[in-house]
């Protein structure tokens, strides 16, 4: 059993998702089903097979180090849920 309810609570905390306690049993069942699906990977022989992170075997390109982005503070902050004087507001962190 990869996904018991404790694993769900621990993983939800790592993912910063506040799952209500009432949802945890159902989520545990669904995640267990998904992990059963992927469990078959363990049986595949991959000794010496290199990992493939990406489809293109390209080097990461570099571009000239020139200024391209200009001040867009107002437009960047227009969708902020709470802002004041050009700053994002969050609950008080330091008492």
């Amino acid at each position, binding site marked *: 059993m990869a996904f018991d309810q404790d694993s769900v609570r621990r993983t939800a905390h790592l993912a910063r998702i506040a799952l209500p306690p009432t949802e945890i049993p159902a989520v545990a069942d669904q995640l267990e089903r998904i992990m059963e699906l992927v469990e078959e990977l363990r049986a595949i022989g991959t000794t010496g097979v290199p990992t493939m992170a990406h489809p293109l075997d390209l080097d990461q390109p570099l571009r000239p180090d020139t200024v391209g982005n200009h001040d867009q503070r107002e437009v960047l902050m227009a969708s*902020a849920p709470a802002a004041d004087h050009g700053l994002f507001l969050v609950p008080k962190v330091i008492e």
Partner: protein
Amino acid sequence: MELHESSLRELRQGLQERDFSSVELTTTLLKRISALNPMLNAFVTVTEGEALAAAATADARRAAGEDGPLLGIPLAHKDIFCTAGVRTTCGSKMLERFVAPYNATVVERLAAEGVVMLGKLNMDEFAMGSSNENSHFGPVRNPWHTGMVPGGSSGGSAAAVAAGLVPVATGTDTGGSIRQPAAFCGITGIKPTYGRVSRYGMIAFASSLDQGGPMARNAEDCALLLNVMAAHDPRDSTSHPAAASDFLRGLDRPLQGLRVGVPEEFFGAGLDPEVAAAVQAGIAELARQGAAVRSIRLPNNPHAVSTYYVLAPAEASSNLARFDGVRYTHRTANPADLADLYQHSRYEGFGAEVRRRILVGTYVLSAGYYDAYYRKAQQVRGLIREDFRRAFAEVDVIVGPTTPTPAFPLGAKNADPVAMYLADIYTIAVNLAGIPAASIPCGFTAAGLPIGMQLMGDYFADDLLLNVAHRYQRETQWHRTHPSLQAGEV
């Protein structure tokens, strides 16, 4: 021929000959959208005012002597592409009120050609889904049968094109999200080679798999759109230097001597017999046109779904970490402290499927599990790519079904995430390898639902796939059959 059923070539000719203006064409389609969208729910946002202004601009450019294949042509974008000044939701409550400060490269390039954007199209939230039922804005309905799903995640794009609300649309494909809805809605769509189409301004789901592409009613229209969409973009570090090409140039080459491979693994248990028969008939048509058809093996294809459901959630859990309730997303009311703000904003802003995939991704990347799942899946991904490498040493194109079944009823697979994942069993390996693949209409079931045939090609063989699709469509009528829709129908 009705305007809403016309191809891009026909529309351009009408605009050139002044049979109609872009404003008239745009007005006609906006009326059709307002009549049919309440039933189909393909559009999340309709940008009527902006569209009429863009159409007037296109007409003025044409009056000044300009011409171009897309000048004055209406289209709509999947709501995953950022549009400056028009909200971009990605199908999520998290981004319900998000207005991007910039245009995606795809949006910008098409706008420069003079296209007229009619609005933003519905999708599964963050492109996670195969039925379009995971949208915060409600499910899209299949224009061929409104009790059926349109497929996903680009379900709004597929339904809008099939219903004649737009001639062409943009989509994205991470595990089948262009091809599967194209098959379910009876249209043509291509997922290009990874690196062809810029991901700049395309909201990320799984960055090593995501690729934008065109969805249209025929292969030629896909080629016209891809000619503009495919280009090297210095703002996307995974954009390929040789991304651009002329996809019209080889469109009409005869298929004589084309080597077609048919993978045994795509015709096994679980394949609907009506789908199998239609795809076999499609392959027979390619043979009739001179293609040499042979059986091939892709022995690791059966592992594609499990590989994908490690790698895609892992990348998603990382990409979606940015949605924190602070800067531009949904924020929970009255958080107790900063941790509470993050956790409740994320619980409320993401739907159930997105939360599930973030949890799976977080789990497979967490301490103690990385080697067993993530590293292992990356190795199997390499095996899947090797299968294709071996196959393309012997054949030019691989052909099979796009989906194991035709469109299924709304609600049929909602209770079981794994059953939904298996809807993409034939499409996912292509994304893992990064190769191009298209879906084209090849028949209907007895119940009148469209069936899609998938064409897969080697890296950068996108032009060959469009060529094969175009030659097939010259001799068949499936793509010219349109659903009959009346406003008010449910």
